């Protein structure tokens, strides 16, 4: 089992590079297209300003997200440091410490979100810099053992470098969204003048190039969104499994998930932008519980019954193996 997990982590780090390369390429396409349109009219080709600008924007937002993004996420969720005089919050602190020991990791910073809906998330840039935040509602509804299950799931996101991957992916997706927005505005604003340019002698290549670019501008935010959601979903099963490996008690997490699923109200403190970080979608949307292609593409999490079923299966295997 440990070897397996070790390989899994390595693969995760390698995957991070592939995803980032893909997103950088998407950024470059957006920038190149803008350069192509700018220079197609016969203006003297100087530096590809738009391409460089797009790559810098992506690089900067990724860098910023790794060096301060966790603070921004915590602030946007109204997370506060825990209060050691409250018994439940002290128990949470102890549970996090226990799970850090089980994973052989430094203890993450612990935060509490004053919200009555049960939910939790982890953020940071890796085991050396990570935070775990849970809502007050979670603390009040779960038993200590179930809380341990949830914390083990979040600790697994830290241990498997999911927090880093999701932070960078979210930042790059944001940059792509911003650029394509600018691109669309540019098209609407300068569309007429540019058409005249290409009529005059820009040639078929420029027109084709512009067409490809327009398609890229329109599609890239959707692609970025679908890719980052797919990454998030794929990580959830792994975090459930590695979490169960930390506690050796998959049933506790399963029953915690049942309680979280039963509380259907949305978590208003948690903004849409960090839904993919949470243990369960905070928007309380119906889409998470549906199946089918569209639901699968746009959900941040796999259907919760599937996750519970898999955890129960694990518990069965553990007891049968004894």
């Amino acid at each position, binding site marked *: 089992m440990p070897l397996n997990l070790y390989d899994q982590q390595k693969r995760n780090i390698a995957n991070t590079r592939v995803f980032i390369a893909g997103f950088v390429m998407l950024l470059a396409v957006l920038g190149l297209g803008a350069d192509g349109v700018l220079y197609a009219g016969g203006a003297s080709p100087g530096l590809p300003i738009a391409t460089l600008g797009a790559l810098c924007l992506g690089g900067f937002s990724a860098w910023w997200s790794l060096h301060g993004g966790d603070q921004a996420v915590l602030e946007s969720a109204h997370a506060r440091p825990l209060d050691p005089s409250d018994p439940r919050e002290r128990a949470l602190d*102890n*549970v996090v410490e*226990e799970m850090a020991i*089980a994973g052989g990791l430094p203890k993450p910073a612990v935060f509490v979100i004053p919200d009555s809906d049960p939910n939790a998330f982890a953020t940071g840039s890796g085991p050396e810099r990570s935070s775990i935040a849970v809502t007050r509602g979670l603390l009040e509804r779960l038993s200590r*053992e179930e809380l341990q299950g949830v914390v083990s799931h979040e600790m697994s996101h830290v241990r498997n470098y999911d927090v880093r991957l999701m932070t960078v992916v979210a930042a790059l997706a944001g940059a792509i969204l911003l650029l394509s927005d600018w691109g669309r505005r540019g098209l609407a604003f300068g569309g007429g003048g540019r058409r005249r340019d290409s009529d005059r002698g820009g040639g078929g290549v420029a027109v084709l190039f512009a067409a490809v670019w327009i398609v890229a501008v329109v599609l890239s935010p959707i692609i970025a969104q679908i890719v980052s959601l797919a990454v998030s979903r794929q990580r959830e099963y792994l975090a459930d499994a590695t979490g169960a490996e930390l506690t050796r008690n998959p049933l506790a997490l399963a029953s915690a998930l049942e309680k979280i699923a039963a509380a259907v109200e949305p978590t208003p403190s948690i903004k849409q932008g960090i839904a993919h970080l949470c243990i369960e979608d905070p928007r309380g949307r119906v889409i998470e519980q549906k199946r089918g292609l569209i639901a699968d593409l746009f959900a941040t999490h796999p259907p919760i019954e599937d996750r519970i079923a898999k955890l129960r299966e694990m518990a069965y295997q553990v007891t049968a193996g004894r």
Partner: protein
Amino acid sequence: MAIGGCLLVLVVGAICAAMWGIWRYNNLISLRNQVANGWRQIDVQLKRRHDLIPNLVSAVRGEMQFEQDTLEKVIQARNSAVAARGVADAADKEGALSQTLGRLFALAENYPNLKANENVRSLMEEVSSTENRIGFARQFYNDIATRYNTAQQVFPDSFIAQTFKFQPVELFELKDDAERAVPKVDLNIRPTP
């Protein structure tokens, strides 16, 4: 010319072999240090338990007047665990201490006043968390020790391990069924209905 080529191949081969050896050797060293660190983590948590128990016992003593016998046993087990010498002896004594503690926690269930007491509740949370930490520290030690032992045995790393006399380490095992049956203590936090 041919001799020069052969020499070149030999030299390059030797350098590659040496680099591979260094890499695998360093891997074993890193695992050995992680194992040592895992072991120390267990000790840290055991120390924490030894420090907490006298506080817990004196906090519940007033309320649990009819359980003096159990309280005495806890204190005795704690003192002999502190005095234990050697790994095997310590493991025995700590196991006995876990058992008496489990009994104390089970009995405490019968005293609702105890759970209403802020100080006792917080001490019980600390002690039960420490029990969990000891368990998880042992679990982590076993995981990392297994990886270390496997790394010494797999081919061809076994050559490096034998040459530099790496020794497999012992895993932590529970001695008897009674110890296995120690209930996980969970007293403080109940979900609000």
